[in-house]
């Protein structure tokens, strides 16, 4: 079947025709030998130009027929007059061919030579992401630098891409992949990196932003965990640091920050997914960011990206006490979500962490907010549970595109309200 489609694709490519537009493939379920006989007669009607995918042989086996658009009425009339059960298996054969062709192109296993060849609509390994970052820097030496802010437990470098159009600028931080199983976030981070270099100098609103603020993007915030999700356990969330006295590994890096640390909303059990760790900032993945933020001293916006649930949230997670500028953050979230939804209609909910999703202590943006970074937000990207962490790769780009609109809203507001 696949061969047939490839052949058709070649045919179409050579002649530039959309040969199968409007054609359908019907699946026919014959109940008895008489119906099989009728179907055999049908297949012999040459004038219908039917393309038989599964011949009528036996009542228990489906009969699949590719019916050209022109013959649809006649075939349906025949089937219905003879009370032969059937349904449309492929509603638009041309669309399916187009989709398959696209899929085939994107699963080429050729290493990309530059970031224009990179497959943004696929999930990548840590090595591929590292290679991407190096290519991006090489292609845009005046705009992008790669910083190493520290090392993971297993000694993997923690890289941050710094996008800067000039010195001494305030910074806007974005991180993805702090929870390793949330794969759409790292994938979106890669897309954001490319988007930035494309839009600077071409998109007026974005150029104005980057002319005033640097963007600091950490794509793989938890590389040990990410590696582990590729090699061993796709559902791994935490870091990979062993816990003394326990057979259980890892700390939840989003419960390890010094904000409400030790309070309700995190676990004290190393075997749990929300284990806070032995002490605040015990994880090098967290401490590296803490040190960077403190030494930078001029970060004005901070966004930590997760999946899934389709939410945009501001502090706090550890307490119900509202942040002082809650009305401003709430309204900004409302606008960001409206812009996000404008692209594909994706609905997000928004509010403080503790009211919108659950109580969580030791969280990233609670700490950054308390450091004085007024515009601290966390995203939960697609979806709302149907696929969850295993979001199909064909949703990566739409997710990244719509999220970018939300990010733009927040970055713009930050730029216009520097403090």
């Amino acid at each position: 079947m696949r061969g047939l489609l490839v052949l058709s694709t070649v045919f179409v490519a050579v002649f530039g025709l959309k040969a199968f537009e409007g054609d359908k493939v019907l699946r026919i379920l014959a109940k008895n030998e008489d119906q099989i006989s009728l179907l055999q007669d049908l297949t012999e009607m040459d004038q219908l130009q039917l393309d038989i995918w599964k011949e009528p042989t036996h009542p228990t086996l489906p009969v699949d027929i590719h019916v050209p658009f022109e013959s649809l009425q006649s075939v349906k009339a025949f089937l219905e007059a003879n009370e032969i059960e059937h349904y449309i298996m492929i509603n638009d054969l041309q669309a399916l061919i187009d989709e398959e062709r696209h899929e085939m192109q994107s699963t080429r296993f050729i290493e990309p030579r530059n970031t224009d060849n990179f497959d943004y609509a696929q999930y990548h390994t840590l090595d591929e992401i590292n290679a991407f970052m190096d290519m991006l820097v090489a292609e845009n030496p005046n705009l992008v630098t790669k910083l190493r802010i520290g090392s993971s437990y297993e000694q993997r470098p923690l890289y941050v891409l710094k996008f800067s159009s000039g010195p001494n600028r305030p910074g806007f931080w974005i991180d993805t992949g702090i929870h390793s199983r949330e794969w759409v976030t790292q994938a979106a981070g890669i897309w954001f990196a490319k988007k930035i270099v494309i839009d600077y100098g071409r998109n007026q609103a974005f150029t104005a932003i980057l002319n005033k603020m640097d963007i600091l993007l950490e794509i793989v915030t938890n590389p040990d965990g990410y590696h582990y999700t590729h090699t061993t356990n796709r559902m791994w969330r935490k870091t990979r640091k062993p816990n003394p006295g326990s057979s259980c590994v890892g700390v939840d890096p989003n419960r390890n920050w010094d904000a409400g640390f030790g309070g309700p909303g995190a676990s004290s059990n190393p075997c749990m997914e929300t284990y806070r760790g032995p002490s605040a900032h015990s994880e090098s993945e967290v401490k590296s960011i803490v040190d960077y933020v403190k030494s930078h001293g001029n970060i004005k916006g901070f966004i930590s990206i997760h999946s899934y649930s389709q939410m945009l949230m501001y502090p706090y997670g550890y307490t119900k006490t509202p942040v002082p500028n809650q009305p401003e953050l709430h309204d900004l979230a409302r606008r960001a979500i409206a812009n996000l939804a404008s692209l594909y209609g994706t609905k997000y909910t928004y509010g403080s962490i503790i009211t919108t999703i659950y109580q969580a202590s030791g969280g990233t943006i609670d700490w950054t907010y308390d450091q004085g970074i007024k515009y601290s937000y966390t995203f939960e990207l697609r979806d709302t549970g149907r696929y969850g962490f295993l979001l199909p790769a064909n949703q990566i780009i739409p997710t990244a595109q719509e999220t970018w609109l939300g990010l733009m809203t927040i970055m713009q507001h930050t730029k216009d309200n520097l403090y």
Partner: protein
Amino acid sequence: MHRCVCAALAVLSLVGASPTPGSAPPRSVPWKASRLDKPNEHVIFLQYGETEPALKLKETMPVEELNPTHYPARRAAAVAQHFLNARHGSPYKWFHVEQVQSATLEEIAGVGAKYHVVFSAKEGVCNQSVGLCTADVLFPEAGGDQTAPQVQCSCEGPLAINASAQEEAFYRRLRGSNSPVTGNNIPDSFGFIAPDMKPLWILAGVASSFVMLKESNENTLYNLAQVANVTQLESEDKQLKFQYHVLLHEMVSQEIIHWKLLVTWAPAGGVSVLHPERQPHCHDCVLPPATAPKERSDPE
């Protein structure tokens, strides 16, 4: 891509020659909660319509208006979703909450927390809205005999969406095949599901709803994370029978919880879940793939 034919089927039946007199009308799929005819088996059944007497006895407590975008309302709606799927789901019918419109909470002393939720929902295979659903979800007070929530739920739109042609075809394909179907990691790490496996994934979602419903409380939010493996088993009757190992994601604790389920289904009835077994918490789990059982001998 999973092609939906439900709407198309409706169109087909309108077009073309009118059926000859005496022909059978299109088959509809009556819902069926579960089989209660084998009391020795550990069948999960749904509590339904039994809450009224208890509620009438208690004093009226103030009813609190809930923010529909905050988590308490959404968790209650998720429970109603599990109820809808357990009741009406099939390998070609899977319901999801779209948006919570409104919700109230009534704490009933000695009984529990009663949520009244209004939410929009959609059937995912045919991408068909079922309009607004109204549900009463009662989470029983801790310490009592009851742990599972009690649910009543009805929706504006039709829940008995006609997917019978696909269900029949799937049923016949699996009944007639000599090699029992098996699958692992559905979806795979990249979110990909082979077209053949899609109904088995949806069936897992529906079957998991029985467990998720029973396990839910005000502090949980469940979704099916992945089907670790599925194996078709021989069946003594006309039902299709599967052994499933599913991974459920609980949002509040962020835990991945493993369950083994025996699931049966046939087009005429609903989904049944037998012998649900929670697997021990496995911190660093690597699951072996399903091994195919020996090939069945041909039926006589």
